[in-house]
């Protein structure tokens, strides 16, 4: 059984003039110790997906349907009290902005000890020892000193290390990291990503990494899912998708990277931009930007088809697979 299994998750936002569908029919699973990447552009719903797992979507968002099974129990149906036992304890979150997690008026040590005591029945001294151990794990220089410092005394990269230490405090099963390095410089980003990767491997923690950066996903994760307009359009092993993307959007996203183009030549570009949630087109949401779009694409959202180990929602891919099958049949 998978550690976390999301089945047919629908998330909506209640706004004036009716509901907006932020996520539609999201299904994926995460195994113990696995590293999964959620990729998409802003507005694709990747952060909403991450937040909805712990039912942390802000008003007016709500879970409209589907299940979020964590060790077989449905998080979507749990009470706030039961959820609190899981948040930060079994499933930890890392945000893009460290100051979302850190309280500016409390020392790092106080915050870490409090977080432990909220879930464990141990003495303050023991809690402090755990806190110190985690700070050592994230390779912060002079960790004892950091315990008595305030968040503003630390640099950006150091703060993000503290955040990772806090996420690790209670030996969680899953860490959900929402753009953890976007606000950091490239050299610092590389260090933090290395650290996160190594820690997850050492401690056998599953990682759900939300990012827009395909480079990071390709280096850190084993499986990835690509989101567009609140839907998963492609999911499978990272290497397979990066090397041979099936969905035209994923292909476009990869080919549009400056490192994929010839220096000095025009880059591959996907025309247009992602529709806002207010006017998602009928059928496949990508069809207005897709060069393979047919009448069929404008009618209904395509079902997932399997190509290798990858699941893709695209009529064009489905047709190609169908053709191949027929050719093989004809040959045999």
């Amino acid at each position: 059984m998978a550690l976390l299994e999301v089945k047919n998750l629908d998330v909506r936002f209640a706004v004036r003039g009716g509901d907006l569908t932020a996520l539609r029919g999201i299904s994926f699973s995460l195994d113990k110790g696995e590293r999964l990447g959620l990729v998409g552009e802003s507005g694709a719903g990747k952060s909403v997906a991450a937040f909805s797992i712990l039912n942390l979507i802000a008003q007016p968002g709500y879970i409209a349907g589907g299940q979020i099974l964590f060790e077989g129990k449905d998080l979507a149906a749990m009470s706030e009290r039961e959820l609190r036992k899981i948040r930060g304890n079994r499933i930890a979150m890392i945000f893009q902005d460290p100051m979302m997690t850190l309280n500016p008026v409390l020392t790092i040590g106080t915050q870490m000890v409090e977080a432990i005591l909220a879930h464990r029945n141990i003495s303050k001294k023991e809690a402090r020892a755990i806190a110190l151990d985690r700070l050592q794990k994230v390779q912060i220089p002079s960790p004892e000193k950091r315990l008595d410092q305030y968040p503003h005394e630390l640099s950006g990269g150091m703060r993000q290390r503290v955040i990772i230490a806090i996420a690790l405090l209670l030996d969680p099963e899953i860490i959900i990291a929402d753009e953890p390095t976007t606000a950091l410089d490239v050299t610092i980003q590389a260090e933090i990503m290395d650290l996160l990767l190594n820690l997850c491997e050492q401690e056998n923690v599953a990682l759900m990494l939300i990012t827009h950066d395909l480079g990071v996903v390709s280096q850190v994760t084993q499986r990835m899912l690509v989101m567009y307009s609140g839907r998963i359009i492609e999911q499978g092993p990272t290497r397979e998708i990066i090397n041979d993307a099936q969905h035209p959007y994923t292909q476009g996203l990869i080919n549009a990277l400056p490192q994929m183009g010839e220096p000095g030549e025009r880059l591959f570009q996907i025309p247009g931009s992602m529709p806002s949630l207010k006017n998602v087109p009928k059928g496949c949401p990508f069809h207005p930007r897709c060069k393979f779009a047919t009448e069929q694409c404008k009618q209904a959202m395509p079902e997932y088809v399997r190509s290798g180990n990858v699941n893709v929602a695209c009529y064009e891919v489905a047709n190609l697979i169908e053709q191949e099958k027929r050719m093989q049949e004809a040959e045999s």
Partner: protein
Amino acid sequence: MTSPLVSIRGLEKRFDLSGSLLEQITFEGGRFRRKQEAVHAINGVDLEVQKGEALCVVGESGCGKSTVARTVMGLLSPSAGEIHYDGQRIDNLERKDALPYRRKMQMIFQNPYASLNPRMTIQQTLEEPIRFHHPDWSQIQVRDKIHEVMHSVGIDQDWGNRFGHEFSGGQRQRIAIARALAVDPEFIVADEPISALDVSIQAQVLNLLMDAQESRGLTYLFITHDLAVVEHFGTRVAVMYLGRVCELADTKTLFSAPRHPYTQALLSAIPKLEDDRPNHIRLKGEVPTPVNLPSGCVFHGRCPYANERCRQEVPQLITTDGGTQVACHAVEEGRL
């Protein structure tokens, strides 16, 4: 080599942190002292931009790359040093004398959500600069010019009487580019023009900038933190660290044979699609604050090759055999 279009000579910029005279006085060790603090954003930068090229300035936050851009455009005045355009010194001109250069030099900003005036329609945004710089033009000439720039950046003529907030980030950046192009500039400073945009939109805007360069013969000073973009877009690259240029080279040379230890670390940190496992050069610590600059080479605190000389003496840019200019004692001494 022909004379450069823009040359930056010995540029320095400090931002005073200490406030008014009263705020500077502190009570320390039993007596009053006047304490002055400043952020040393740029500490002696020399750069030349050749006509027709795209000179990219890269570096991490706080390295002074944006300050260079803003000083070149006259949004900030230099604490020391000079800016020359086409042989003419421009950093000390009166507003009236600077007007012709305002037309020739334009700027594209990072945040398309803030760079368009929210109370102006697209038509007004594009029309104002044209009318301002060509007061003698007729209504038809102005209209034709607006249509021409709108067309060349790929925005719809119908958008004219709508406001900036009705558009997506990519569309807004197109409008901002159209505004810059409306006065027919020769030289464009682009300050992180794509870093606020989504991946698929970044490609569109980069293509647009390249098309404009080709069709209008533009020269760019392109500020960015994204080395992948530099490799694609730049003719030459200047790598900055803590307000100094540490390496300056042709894009190809820099990416194939980076010399400065900082450039090497920066290059190895780009997440590439090909590798499975990251293999970064690790730097010690983080960028120090530009308030108290380290002595000697600004990079010595994080450099694996630093020795006593690096801690004492500021390295100057030297030209190596490969044509790369690099400011590093280790390279000069052949240690690296």
